[in-house]
């Protein structure tokens, strides 16, 4: 549930980039820090790493102020992908308002993707979130690498799934903003009524997405 602070006039969404180890979650945030043209953009906070791999999380704050005076913040987190850090991963996932699942397109990573998604589903259950109602976008990253699953293969596999599917090569920024945009759309649809974004704050879906730094440049 997004955190609404009436006194401070602030609404905060927690968005979590989840996925298998070394799938490019941190790279997504680094690129988004460059690409998103949100009204307010903080520095990317990268916590301790070990051999260039996330141990705790990365945090990218983005935000904008509405004409109505409401500050809308997005705090984008990554989780540590390594299997051993499940406790940390679960703690970062708690209180999430939206999730990007960053999958690895390489053929030999299919099993890891499956296990990571299974882990996401389980941990969502453990922290009391309903995967059927949570805004979720699936990103297939690393399209720049050889020996990857074709887009048709992936589409066929995800044909039954209800989530938006985005192809990306985060290393050179391809698809990063599109992924974030898709998540912003899902977030608006899920929470707009609850916080009367369109009514009280004059925020339609397109305005919301554009102000948050999504949408087509």
């Amino acid at each position, binding site marked *: 549930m997004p955190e609404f602070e009436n006194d401070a006039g602030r609404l905060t969404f*927690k968005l979590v980039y989840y996925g298998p180890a070394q799938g490019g979650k941190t790279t997504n945030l680094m690129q988004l820090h460059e690409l998103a043209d949100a009204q*307010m*953009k*903080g520095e990317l*906070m990268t*916590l*301790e790493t070990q051999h260039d791999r996330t141990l*705790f*999380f990365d*945090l990218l*704050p*983005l*935000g904008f102020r509405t004409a109505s005076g409401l*500050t809308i*913040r997005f*705090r984008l*987190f990554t989780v540590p992908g390594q299997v051993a*850090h*499940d*406790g*940390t991963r*679960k*703690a*970062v996932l*708690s*209180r999430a308002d939206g999730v990007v699942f960053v999958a690895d397109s390489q053929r030999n990573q299919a099993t890891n993707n499956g296990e990571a998604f299974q882990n996401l589903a389980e941990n969502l259950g*453990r922290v009391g979130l309903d995967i059927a109602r949570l805004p979720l976008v699936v990103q297939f990253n690393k399209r720049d690498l050889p020996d990857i699953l074709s887009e048709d293969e992936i589409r066929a596999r995800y044909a039954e799934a209800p989530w938006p599917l985005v192809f990306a090569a985060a290393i050179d920024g391809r698809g990063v903003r599109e992924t974030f945009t898709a998540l912003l759309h899902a977030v608006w649809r899920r929470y707009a009524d609850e916080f009367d974004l369109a009514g009280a704050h004059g925020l339609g879906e397109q305005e919301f997405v554009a102000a948050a730094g999504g949408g087509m440049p």
Partner: protein
Amino acid sequence: MNPGNEFDRDFTLQELLAPRDAAELCAAATGLLGVPVSLLDAGGAPFADSAPPAPGAARAPLVLELEPLGFLAADCPPSALAGIARLLRWGLLSRARLRMVSDLHLEAVRADYAKLQQQNEALKASEAKYRELAANLDAKVREQTQIIDERQRQLYQAERLASIGQLAAGVAHEINNPLGFIGSNLFAAERYRAQLAALRDVIPPAVWQQQDLDFVFADFADLLRDTREGLERIARIVRDLKGFSSVDQPEEQLVDLNAQLTALLAVVNGQKPEAVNLVADLQPLPPLMCLPGHLNQAFLAILQNALQAVEAGGTVTVRSRAVGDNITVSIRDDGPGIPAEVLPRVFDPFFTTRGVGAGTGLGLTVARDIILAHSGKVDISCPLEGGTVVTVALPA
């Protein structure tokens, strides 16, 4: 998880900076800039012990993410103040990161601990299950062992019964043959005696009297009659022996238990000491489906114990009654009774109070097994008035 301790909460200046630290920082900044420096909170009010800033003083925001959590204020060029604010932000950011990481770590440890506890509970549950299984297994094995023991005893006894039965059948057969020709010879002898009596008319009376043939003929007739009686007794004993061993009837059959008891008493009567009085008190019974040979063996074992209890003289009473759907047979002796500490053990296998070789310690055990196999019950007690009563109840 305590609310308010989430790792991803928004930090306030108060959380990151103790008043003493704030005073020290302001003093240091004042030293660097040469003018008094104040620290203000997010709302612009002086933080902790900071002095209010001079009117018109420059302000530099302290931003960690998007919005300022405080300000530095001093009457100096804004660029110089911004530089100091930048330095202070680094310190605050480091503290915030440390807090986030340690809080996150705490959350993760709690989550892991909770997970471990769950696994521990599951392990405990499965351990308890296996423990219970093991315990049951033990009881099950004991139960099975007991059944095997019982079956072995029954088998042993059945074999013994079979050999006794065979012996009895063999003896009966062997005796029946000579009995047959003794009987027919006796018949011939009686006929000859009648023919010999006709000699009286041809033998001179002097010779007749000299030889005392009147007496001889009379006594001869008595002897033959006595022999005939003896023969009939032997024939009856053989018949009882066969009936008792039931060698001819290895299958279950419907019998009148009273007839069985009567045959049994007839066999025992010949063995009992003179001083013992054996009384039968039998009342009509419904027919009983049973293995007669086995039941006879059971009653014989009980009866033998009773007879031994009154060896020196006394009475053994065998009573049969129909009680509802049950047949009860009680065998009572007026002997010395059984000591209380021995009473619970009399049915135990190989328990005997007699000398080595005198008893196997299996008689009553097998009797009980046989009666249980007939879905019956056997009970032994020593009433206050003395003696011992063994009561057998069998479902008709």
